[in-house]
């Protein structure tokens, strides 16, 4: 077909991962370019995302699409097989609601709970637990947020289901535990065990030291502020 599909990403970025997983779920071949986001961003990245200068960037036949959720919607509308959003407008609106909830509330608060100083941690942790309880209710007895198969909410929730779980392991926290959130915990296991997901997730042994370093940096920066 002569299509040019490229992803500018960062191997440890949960946002970058979403774009790659979506393309893999649709069986779309792409070239992956790893950006040195902590050191030296490439001229191409700055050209394709001049406003935010961030990864991921999807390049499709020379046109750039940025912001992970915008990318996911674009991929869904461009490659119209193996759909991961519901067709019904109301169900679609519900999926979009949970995606926004994860990105605006769940994920940022869970990350904050991981590196917050001791004196603030309890408050943030309580807030995070409330959000996880709410997110768990969205599962409503289903295997995945998308039903029997992975949907767009699952792709976005990978930030919580995998990346946050790795983070918690480092910090010795047990927020997403089987006894506190049995459904959500089971979901994260089922999600990570899907073959497409398993083979595309950044490896745990590489991710652990990276996240450890990142948390240390956040704590340092916060102490200075």
């Amino acid at each position, binding site marked *: 077909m002569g299509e040019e599909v490229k992803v500018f990403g960062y191997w440890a970025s949960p946002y970058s991962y979403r774009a790659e997983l979506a393309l893999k779920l649709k069986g779309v071949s792409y070239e992956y370019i790893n950006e040195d986001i902590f050191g030296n961003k490439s001229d191409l990245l700055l050209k394709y995302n001049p*406003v935010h200068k961030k990864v991921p960037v999807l390049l*499709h036949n020379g*046109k750039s*699409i*940025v*912001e992970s*959720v*915008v*990318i996911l*919607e*674009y991929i869904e*509308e*461009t490659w119209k097989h193996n759909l991961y959003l519901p067709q019904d*407008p*109301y169900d*679609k*609106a519900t999926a*979009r*609601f949970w995606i*926004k*909830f994860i990105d605006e509330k769940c994920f940022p608060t869970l990350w904050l709970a991981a590196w917050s100083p001791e004196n603030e941690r309890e408050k943030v942790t309580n807030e995070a637990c409330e959000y996880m309880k*709410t997110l768990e209710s969205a599962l409503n007895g289903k295997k995945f947020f998308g039903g029997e198969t992975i949907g767009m909410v699952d792709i976005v929730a990978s930030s919580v289901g995998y990346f946050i779980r790795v983070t918690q392991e480092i910090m010795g926290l047990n927020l997403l535990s089987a006894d506190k959130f049995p459904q959500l915990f089971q979901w994260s296991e089922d999600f990570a065990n899907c073959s497409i997901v398993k083979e595309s997730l950044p490896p745990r042994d590489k991710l652990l030291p990276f996240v450890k370093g990142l948390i240390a940096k956040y704590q340092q920066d916060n102490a200075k502020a």
Partner: protein
Amino acid sequence: MAGELVLLDFWPSPFGMRSRIALAEKGIPYEYREEDLRNKSDLLLQMNPVHKKIPVLIHNGKPVCESVIQVQYIDEVWHDKAPLIPSDPYQRAVARFWVDFIDKKIYELGSKIWKTKGEEQANAKKEFIECLKLLEGELGDKTYFGGESLGYVDVALVPFYSWFYAYEKCGDFSIEAECPKMIAWVKRCMQKESVAKSLPDQEKVYEFILQLKKVFGIE
């Protein structure tokens, strides 16, 4: 027909205005219900238990929350009338990008302008103008962000115009002086009945902000 569609809203909310404009553009009748945010109705708490916020669009008894989700929903359900979101996937992605940008920047920076003073306010004003200039760049020579007709980005952005006078008074600056193209675009939008009828008077919004400042003890 109106019994099928209810909008729980609060008159100065730029987010509520988005849904009002979208429904008006498509000529869809609905019941508007004003919420007292200090005394939220049982219906609001029931329909938006997660955030307990307005606007909430209730269609055949089922709630759709979050203004950008509502506008997309309205466009998808009533797709044959005055389409707001482009049909081409790349154009849609561009529109979504700018709506996301507006959501991340405009409201928060605007809030800082009326809530803060000194250096924090000065920084907020500077960044606010920079964001408007970026949006002016995206608009270019087009009549609307949506081209010849009102689009998703127009609907998402124009409600903030009703707060411009309040920002200007609180921040002691002129948005038109810095971003004339933006104000020219606003004036074109305000010529549309769907927009003019959905936005409250700027002076009323300013009075509302002054009340809020008193309540929050902001000088």
